[in-house]
């Protein structure tokens, strides 16, 4: 299950007073362009695709049953609306499914000694970098599906406000937990 390489997390800069901001996987210069990105957990992509598929199918099924059942005869206008809805939802579901396949493959994160970066977006690519120094608190969010598949969503809150919460979903639980611990152990947090 752990195809995604577990992140080696150690506060290498614990004692040294010199500034360094090396990526926590490999050697590179401290520049955002040379980050070594990691993809989200493959199981997350799979779960998300299936969930989209199943939820769309479930809604379609309910509507189909509504249309065909004879217990509560519906007026013809509503039946008409329902058939349009089925068409629309089917279309939206398909587009969404295809979009998720493409978009989820474009989501990456990268952890360095001093900051964490998340990149996403198909047409509008967005790279958000959150310095660990500015993190106020850390949360792991796990919904029912995420609990079942051992996944977690890491949320980092800064003083930038709720709208700018740094969020990486689709992490393996063990990864998310070690990232959380890494952030909490970061020496800059306690002195902040």
């Amino acid at each position, binding site marked *: 299950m752990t195809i995604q390489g577990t992140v080696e997390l150690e506060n290498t800069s614990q004692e040294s007073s010199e*500034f360094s*901001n090396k990526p926590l996987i490999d050697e590179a210069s*401290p*520049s*955002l*362009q040379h980050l070594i990105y990691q993809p989200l957990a493959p199981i997350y992509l799979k779960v998300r695709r299936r969930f989209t598929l199943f939820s769309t199918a479930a809604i379609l099924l309910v509507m189909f049953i509504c249309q065909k059942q004879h217990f509560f005869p519906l007026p013809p206008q509503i039946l008409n609306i329902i058939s349009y809805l089925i068409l629309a939802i089917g279309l939206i579901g398909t587009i969404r499914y295809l979009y998720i396949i493409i978009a989820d493959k474009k989501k990456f994160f990268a952890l360095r000694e*001093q*900051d964490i970066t998340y990149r996403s977006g198909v*047409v*509008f*690519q*967005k*790279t*958000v*970098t*959150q*310095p*660990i*120094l*500015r993190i106020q608190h850390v949360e792991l969010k796990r919904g029912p599906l995420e609990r079942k598949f051992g996944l977690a969503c890491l949320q980092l809150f*800064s*003083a*930038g*406000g709720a709208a*700018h919460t*740094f969020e990486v979903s689709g992490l393996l639980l063990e990864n998310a937990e070690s990232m959380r611990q890494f952030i909490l152990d970061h020496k*800059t947090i306690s*002195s*902040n």
Partner: protein
Amino acid sequence: MTTAEQPEIQVYDEKTLPDWQRISPIAIVYFIASFIKGLLSNIVVFLPALYFSSDFIMENPTIWFPVIIALISILMIGTFLSFYFFQYRLNDDHIEIRSGVISKKHINLPFARIQNVKLEQPIYYRWFNYTCLQLDTAGSAKQEAKIVALKTDFAEQLKAEILAQHLEQVSSSAKQSDCDETVDQLLNNQSRPAEEIINTRSIPDLIIHGLTNNRIWIFLGGLAPFFDDFSNYIVAFFQNIGIDIQQLLTIADMPVWQITLYALTLTFIFLSIISLFSIAGSIFTFYQYTLSKLEDRYIRRSGLLTKHEVTMRLSRLQMVIRQQDWLDVLLKRINLKFEQINVSVNQNQMNAQNDKIIVPSIKPNECEKLIDDVYPENQMMTITYQRISKRFLLKNLGFILTPLFSVLALLFIISNQLIILTAVLPAYLLLSLLIFMRWYRWGYASDKNYTYIRKGFFGVDYFCFPTYKTQQVQYKQSWFLKRHQLCSINFILAAGMQSVPYINEKIGESLANDTLLKVESTKKSWM
């Protein structure tokens, strides 16, 4: 009050009160006032009920009396209970407040967590020498604590105590650093404060401020319940002097010049009324404005009816905004804003205005002096700003506005409605001009300490923040931008987001890297 060292110790003893304290009964007035305020601002909810029951009340006039008695007694009991259950307690470095009649609230606030100390003196407190002490935290707006009625002297002492606590904390946490001495100095100075007034605003300044900045919302907020009456009154007033607005506005069979004249006159009347209100609003908020400096603290005092005092420590300052609307540019006046952490997102504009440290309508030289005072070595007005790419114009003008206009124009020409076209054309030209000015103004610059952004349309706003105060950096690139080696950078600050779009991707990358380096290598706290 605290002029020598001995009273300082006394204050401390007096302050360490283990028991719960009640505030002065004058707080009842405050509770009544805030209840009435709440009622008025929610009157829209009650109006339908009142309207539907009005017939019933008219038929049974005797019911008024008991209803009013009942309402007043509920109000009295409610406010008395609010007062009775409002208690506070001070420990060494904590303040605890218990309040609430039905839903109880207990706040425990360590002094070290307090961001901001504000004093607010409503007009009815002035004769009794009481004041409200409001304590803001860095967290959510829910955690705000307000002690409703304290003797002004005691409130001042408490404020000094809380702010002194900060310094102690700083000194204890920065033991190893060499700034220990200066902190000690600050602590010593604490006992003999010498407040220095660095700016005042006169009534003419406030009139200019009212004219250039629309302060009318101060009234709109308070007058909302009376709008209907007000508009009816205006119509009646014009009828009395022989003008029938109803008839004026039936423009179908009037020559064009007459309509234009009427429109101009009405606009003029409307604008003058608005400006008058706006001037009054400006005076209400900023009457007897003083900005003073006490060590590392900036204190703003102002207000005609309710006096506000806002204190900000320099380290809490996140960003300086030098704001000029088009009228300000003509009159050479500037609004200077000292932005702190933006917790009051959901509060209404009026409160936010009172919370902020803003210096209204100052002259350029005064402005420069103030900015230099808070951010020494800043180059806000001297540095060369890099303009954003011309692609910004191409995208907004070329790909959005012009095609839209062309389609509309074509539609109107086909359907032979050229009159509408003559209305759309000026709108198109105006929007184009706005987009052009937006591009012309939008610039960025950075030096070794600060990041600068210039923005605006006909007016111009300058933003300046110490680069290390950035909370988060966002680098954005769409397909369109990528094709032309462009990108957008967003700086997330505690005071909000600042963005620089359409810059060269190499420059954008280095801006982002540089900002992160400054944040992470200096390890300075943002507050």
